[in-house]
């Protein structure tokens, strides 16, 4: 550690000869250490392989140093749970006090992410979409990643799915999957009234679909859920989302157009765009989660 400090000071003196404040110095030491390790790791792999112990020691030392610095930062941060913290300001007050008339949602989190800060959520839906497209790019069967052996294995799997008897899994799947999906739909539809919303509900529906697919095999799923349906649902959901949000951004920023009626807070048909947006997000997420599963197992939806 002493050595690094002197290197930094040397550099510093060379640059402009000023003094370094203590805190900055501490942080620089942390930083120069980390970069040294990165450099080692990526540039002389052979060297590290010979020095596993050194490498391990360095990683642990850096992590411990990091934790130490962060603990001292935590020590200086605003107190946990104190109502006088900086985060407790007019922004939060408005979300909580005017949230109901402005968004119509009694779940303030849903109101916040789908109305006040909807641009972030739009980005988030896009992240999910891009991730599933990446997985399609990586794992969907094509001539570069699909061999005859896998073809045969897949055929065997299909055969087992059709002929093997797995009573516990199949009866359980048959009984549970509809209930799980129903619960997911409930969570989505009540996203603006109670905890949950499009994302959690969609994941639950996706889990139900995964359960069903693992009990009965993907062949059976494909009778009603093909790659085409998958793309259509995803794209349809995102386009609806995009259209709703474009409308509200455009009208909001230019002060034109009509307000969407907010309905009576607490009722299921209320909160303007939040309910349709939740449904869109739910559909996208459910398809995406099942899509991940299907691509991971068979390389096809």
């Amino acid at each position, binding site marked *: 550690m002493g050595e690094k400090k002197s290197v930094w000071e040397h550099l510093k003196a060379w*640059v402009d000869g000023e003094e370094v404040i203590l805190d900055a110095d501490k942080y620089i030491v942390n930083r120069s250490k980390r970069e040294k390790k990165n450099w080692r790791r990526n540039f002389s792999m052979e060297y590290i392989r010979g020095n596993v112990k050194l490498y391990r020691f360095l990683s642990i030392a850096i992590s411990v140093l990091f934790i130490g610095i962060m603990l001292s930062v935590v020590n200086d*941060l605003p107190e946990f749970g104190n109502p006088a913290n900086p985060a407790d300001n007019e922004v939060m007050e408005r979300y909580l006090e005017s949230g109901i008339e402005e968004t119509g949602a009694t779940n303030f989190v849903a109101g916040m992410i789908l109305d006040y800060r909807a641009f972030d959520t739009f980005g988030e839906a896009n992240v999910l979409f891009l991730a599933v497209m990446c997985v399609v790019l990586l794992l969907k069967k094509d001539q*570069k*990643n699909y061999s005859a052996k896998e073809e045969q294995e897949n055929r065997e799997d299909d055969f087992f799915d059709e002929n093997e008897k797995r009573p516990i899994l199949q009866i359980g799947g048959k009984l549970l999957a509809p209930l799980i999906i129903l619960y997911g739909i409930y969570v989505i539809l009540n996203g603006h009234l109670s905890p949950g919303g499009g994302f959690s509900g969609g994941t639950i529906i996706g889990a139900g679909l995964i359960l069903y697919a693992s009990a009965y095999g993907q062949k059976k799923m494909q009778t009603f859920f093909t790659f085409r349906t998958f793309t259509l649902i995803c794209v349809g959901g995102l*386009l609806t989302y995009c259209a709703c949000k474009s409308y509200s951004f455009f009208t909001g920023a230019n*002060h034109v157009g009509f307000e969407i009626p907010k309905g009576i807070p607490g009722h299921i048909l209320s909160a303007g765009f939040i309910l349709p947006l939740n449904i869109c997000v739910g559909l996208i997420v459910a398809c995406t989660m099942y899509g991940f599963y299907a691509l991971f197992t068979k390389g096809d939806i």
Partner: protein
Amino acid sequence: MEHINLVHNIPFFSIFLAMLCGIITALVKNGRVAYKIHTIMVLVVGIMSGILLASVVKNNEIFTFMMGHFPAPWGNELRAGPLEALMAVTFSIVMLLMVSGGSEFIFKDVLPEKQPLYFIMLNALFGAMLALVYTNDIFTAYVFIEINTIASCALIMAKGTPQSMVGTTHYLVISLLGSGLFLLGASILYSITGHLLFPQMKEAILEIIKTEQYRLPLLVVTGFMFIGIAIKSALFPFHSMLPGAYHAAIPTSSGILSGLVLKSYVILGIKLIYCVFSEYVMETLKITEVLFAFGLAGMVMGSVYAMKERKMKRMLAYSSVAQIGYIYMGIGMGTRVGMTAACFHILAHAITKTLLFLCCGSFVEDSGGKEKIYHMRGAAHRNLLAGVGYTVGALSMVGIPLLAGFISKVYFATASVYSSGKMAAVLIVLGVSMVLNALYFLPSVIAIWTPVKGAESRPTSSVSPVFAVSIVGFIILNFALGIYYRPITRIIQMSIDLLVQ
């Protein structure tokens, strides 16, 4: 009904148009159609950004655009001024030229059924870069950084070879480390300021500096955010993911990643410096000095690594590291003149490095997939246009007058005069790095022009018209930026003055 100012809607339109095209492309089955959609989208965004640029320069204004019904501290916001508009125009032009010039590579190297997916990623990447440029909210920045990461990884791995998978993994791990640090920084910043939008944060931070209450957290946060951005934009010690990734990716992807994606993070960093951590805070916390030192180190080390490389694409990747070092050096000078030089260099590097990657890709294709500089002897005779393009790009990187690279170096040297105590360091390193640049670029230029015996037996490759147009376009842009640089620098200066206010 009030009067609608459509020009102010342009940032929002361009981001949403790019994203919308990305979504729609998923329905397309044919790569050519996807390519057309992409080209039209970029063209439209480019024209719109041009109008925006003309308007903001004329009115000398910087404006915020409310995303939704709620004003600043409650809703999201976009913010556009001359700098943002200029960057959007540059991104559109470079993207257009690069993708049309490199479309051959896409259609050849990516499997036909996956070509539409490639264009989805390109569209999303374009939208995310625009969002990073325009954003005025730190969490939006985080979300779009993630989109940028995923889309750029997809561009790298689209080739489908094992090497590209390895490159992608490396790139992904290091990028995720960067975004993790950025997120940690953002959340600590939120907890000490209580805001997520840039202007409100700035006020809160100035308050903190005054009261000295959360000084250590502020210091560490600033450090984390800038380490995050430095990792993302491959500043010298964090550059290790670049060579493998750029080497394995198709040339179009490499060009876009090196020329535009890295720059979008740098611009986010510049916005953070001026709009969140004001100049004063940066000085007090000595962050600029750190960036300056790492920039200098990057300039030299990037070139040194590049000299060691025998493969052309890897060499170009390391050269990108060196150029990123220039940009950070400019930022680190801590003066507005330095920042102007850095911004100008962003433009110069964007148009030059994409040109180099494009030509390099065509050389590699001509020499039958061999990538060493040794194998490319005589490549310029087989493909004259690409040879000329490569030469112009290389000379510009070295810093020959009349070319864009020269102007940025002049500006860096001029800027060094204004920052006390850094002049000697800047001038020495600038000189050394120019010599090093020349040392690794000239051999490759000489190699491609060296005639090889029996070259006549190899057929001269036919150049497709789009490729020719885009190379010529890049060359013209390079000369234009090298000769008529005055208006550009005036716009940059103006926008920096506006940003500081």
